[in-house]
């Protein structure tokens, strides 16, 4: 009840000097904290730059020895010390292309089913199941491809393809197929086509989940207007949803392509691992990742080793480009959504 009533406030009053020191300390800690966070964010950048720089540097032996011929030569002769990357690069592109050709329509169908066709209660569980497919480790795809799928390819699928599309002949020696060289050859099961199909199974969940997400961003007033005019579901999807999301859909396809290009284990099991020039989709071949996985631990010659690391650099640059395109296209939709 006396003059010192104001000091009732909890505890003794803090001297001004201490409070200033405290806030200076806080400011310093904040700066330190922020710096530490920034450093960690830079690790992401360093990982990418390091992956490119490290593989380029250790691949310098091969780049120096072969120059541009590294990209144009088909000979991969471990004993003769000649390494050309054309076959692995070609194999990577062909298998990924086969995968994309199969996976894009299927993913589109799945995304359509999950956004426009299926009854509401079915969408979440089916969507989750398809996404589980993306969670299965790639080595499981490889083993399944090798032990289960490859025999089916060589006994049923490839003979059919050869007889109907390729250079198949009947008992009388008359051609039964269309003679397409892509589908000619011997039905040995392993090869570019089988690898492409296994890759397709792997990337379908990635592409379809991107497509589903972007389809869901289409404003419902657009779709409802079309329905009100009497459009069918297919017309709404093809004429309204797809034009609205075109860039992002292509981005999703590129994302799947990026995955397919860099996939190692699934491909290594089924591609056949041959550096010979393939003459059809049935031929065994090799991809960049499969070549590295197969040969690196046995590569004792420095030039061989360096060539494999150089291949890793090539793969990194190709996938980086493809993924960058994918991300840029996906982002365009995101920014429009923000508007």
């Amino acid at each position: 009840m006396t003059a010192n009533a104001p000091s009732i406030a909890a505890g003794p009053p803090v001297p001004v000097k201490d409070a200033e020191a405290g806030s200076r300390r806080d400011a310093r800690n904040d700066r330190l904290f922020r710096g530490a966070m920034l450093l960690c964010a830079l690790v992401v950048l360093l990982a990418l730059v390091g992956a490119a720089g490290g593989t380029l540097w250790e691949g310098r032996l091969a780049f120096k020895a072969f120059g541009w011929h590294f990209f144009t030569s088909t000979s991969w002769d471990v004993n003769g010390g000649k390494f050309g990357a054309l076959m692995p690069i070609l194999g990577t592109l062909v298998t990924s292309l086969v995968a994309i050709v199969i996976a894009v329509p299927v993913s589109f169908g799945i995304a359509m089913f999950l956004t426009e066709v299926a009854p509401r209660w079915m969408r979440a569980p089916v969507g989750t199941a398809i996404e589980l497919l993306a969670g299965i480790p790639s080595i499981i795809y490889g083993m399944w491809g090798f032990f289960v799928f490859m025999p089916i390819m060589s006994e049923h699928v490839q003979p059919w393809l050869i007889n109907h599309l390729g250079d198949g002949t009947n008992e009388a020696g008359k051609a039964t197929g269309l003679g397409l060289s892509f589908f000619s050859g011997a039905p040995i099961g392993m090869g570019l086509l089988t690898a492409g199909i296994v890759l397709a199974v792997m990337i379908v969940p990635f592409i379809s989940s991107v497509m589903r997400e972007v389809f869901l961003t289409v404003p419902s007033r657009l779709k409802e207007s079309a329905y009100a005019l009497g459009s069918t579901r297919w017309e709404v999807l093809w004429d309204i949803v797809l034009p609205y999301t075109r860039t992002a859909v292509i981005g999703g396809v590129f994302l799947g392509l990026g995955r397919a290009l860099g996939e190692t284990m699934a491909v290594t099991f089924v591609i056949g691992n041959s550096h010979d020039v393939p003459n059809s989709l049935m031929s065994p071949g090799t991809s960049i990742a499969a070549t590295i996985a197969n040969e690196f631990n046995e590569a004792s010659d420095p030039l061989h080793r360096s060539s494999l690391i150089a291949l890793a650099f090539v793969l990194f640059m190709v996938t980086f480009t493809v993924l960058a395109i994918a991300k840029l296209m996906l982002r365009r939709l995101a920014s429009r959504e923000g508007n």
Partner: protein
Amino acid sequence: MDARDGIAATRVAERMYRRRSFTNAIALGFAGIATLLGLFFLSWILWTTIQRGSSAIHPAIFRKMTLEGGLLNAIVGTVLLSFMGIAIATPIGVAAGTYLSEYAKLRKFGEAIRFLNDILLSAPSIVLGMFVYTLIVMPAHSSSALAGGVALALIALPVIVRTSDEMLRLVPGAMREAALSLGVPQWKVTVQVLYRSALPGITTGVLLALARIAGETAPLLFTAASNFYWSVNPTKPIASLPVAVFNFASQADDAQIALAWAGALLITLFVLLLSVLARGILLRNKVAHE
């Protein structure tokens, strides 16, 4: 208007309508078949793994080393490697996510890092393994468990960065402002308020990252390499389930192939269990928020 003209026009409209319905039916049928195809392959692959794996799993594989036809050292190796990967990637990833969400939300620099992080997320794992090979294995002249852990950390990192960033951005701005207005320094706000609020989401990210790296084979081939004996030494090569499965599956011997399927089943079960768990946490958290 002439009555006949009217009838003809109706017929044309009807024909058009029928054609449109037909196209629609084909498209809907195709969508259904595509989905069935996806589900068919999923169950086919899972069924193969379960069938062949479960007939090969018996108690002895948990007691013997890979050299003696068991998987014990590979299982322990995978646990160790995954733990190392997560232990390295989690603090860095959460911190990077914090930077993106709290300090560089809309800045160009933050956008650039986010962009690169998304690319790292899909970068070929074998190239990241090769990078760690040039970074750690070549200077040390030996593959090692540590190198394997770093390679796995590089794969886990972008997953954790992305989920942390997203989960922290979901924390309402009012919470930050309330804490800041009490005079709490920003780092304390982040550590004591934001992390606590975003914890379930960040945990989900870490679990998803774990599910991703536990089944990775390619980045381990030349970093952790393989080992047929017991080893927990971080500077020595170490066995791991995926690499052991890869080695066994390439043999011609039926017993070894069976062992590969047993390992494949263990990996698949572990990975699927983790992703279901992660989804469960995310879902429960979402329900709690609503």
